[in-house]
């Protein structure tokens, strides 16, 4: 399977930012500072379970419900 990481990243940013460009930008920065190398992932990237687990944890810590 592929593309799940970028989908989850986009969902986290979208749900947190709720349309705010500033919050979208800072959320992206927070993900990178948490060790998610965003530039490495696109729709064809393999679904690395370690990265997905890290993203689930971040989403949980942000109080976001992400269902993929």
């Amino acid at each position, binding site marked *: 399977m592929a593309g799940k990481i970028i989908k989850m990243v986009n969902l986290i940013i979208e749900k947190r930012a709720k349309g705010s460009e500033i*919050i979208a930008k*800072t*959320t992206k*920065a*927070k993900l990178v*500072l948490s060790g998610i190398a965003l530039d490495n992932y696109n729709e064809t990237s393999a679904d690395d379970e370690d990265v997905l687990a890290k993203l689930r944890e971040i989403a949980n810590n942000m109080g976001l419900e992400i269902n993929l």
Partner: protein
Amino acid sequence: MSGVITAYSTNLNVNDAVKDIKNQIGSLDANLILFFASSNFDPNEISRKMKEAFVNAGVFGCSTAGELVDDKVLKNSIVAMAFNSNVIGDYKVEVSANAGDEENIARVFKSFEEYYGTPMLEMNLEEYVGIVLTDGLDASQERLMQKIGFLTDITFIGGSAGDDLKFKTTYVYANGEAYTGATVLVLLKPAKGFDIIKTQSFNITDQKLSVTKANAMNREVLEFNNKPATYAYAEVLGVPVADVEKYFMSNPVGLIIDREPYVRSPQQIIGDTMVFYCNVLEGMELSLLESTDIIKDTKNAVESKLAEVESAVAILNFHCILRTLELEAKNQTEEYGKIFSKVPTIGFSTYGENYLGHINQTSTMLIFK
């Protein structure tokens, strides 16, 4: 009167220094006092005396590795900024007694929510800003900033307390008490707004270092690009491994976000492992940086922001100790101070700056309108 007064004293007697500060602040109806004091002042005494001098104001601050006030760069001094309600409309000071304890941050944020009557996630980003001063030696800054970032979108900006390069104990101060291993968090509602500058003096090179093995808790990188860290770093620098420590200050690495580096500065080498002044995690893609001119870059950053803001009345400058050391080595300290001659400024030489995360080798500033 703008509603802000800066003050400083180089008198090392606590009573005399605080009297000096009090006299300079004079009759301003201050509601909030922020101070940065050399670690050569007794921490409990300086915090208590500052509170006693300003009983009607909130008083907070931290120990330093050097102080900044207006156009001066000082050592062994105390610098202070007094605000009245024309600048700081409201504030709430809280202490997290254990800097790394995430539950404490949640408790502090609950207190902010109760005080302002608004959930942290619903606060207007342009109405509120936070200051975070934290222990400089307990290596908890990343966890702290990550937790803050998870719980709110409000900007929290600040620095890690210093101890004049003794690397033994640092202190944060709040309302007459001194704390070590702790964090002071202050949520401000500036009366007329605020702005932020994060400036660092580095070019981003094309040389990449992927963190393939790290020990995050100890801020250690064991491998870059699947090679021993020191070898990979030496390789991208194009220098012998034995020489790499000479390049730490001029060639740190950066996490690049929106074409801007978030600097991670190497501290030392243990075997083939590189130890950093902040956390570097497995999976991070870093770029090798090369230093540029601190004076020119800071001047440009400050002048362009002041032109944009127009009505700046105060600057708080969280200035990395590594930049202070570089300026001292180049005999440019005085020139750096002069950049801030137009707007009342205080700041200190930090053991790391806090903005979105924990960062190194920046001047990170909060500007009040």
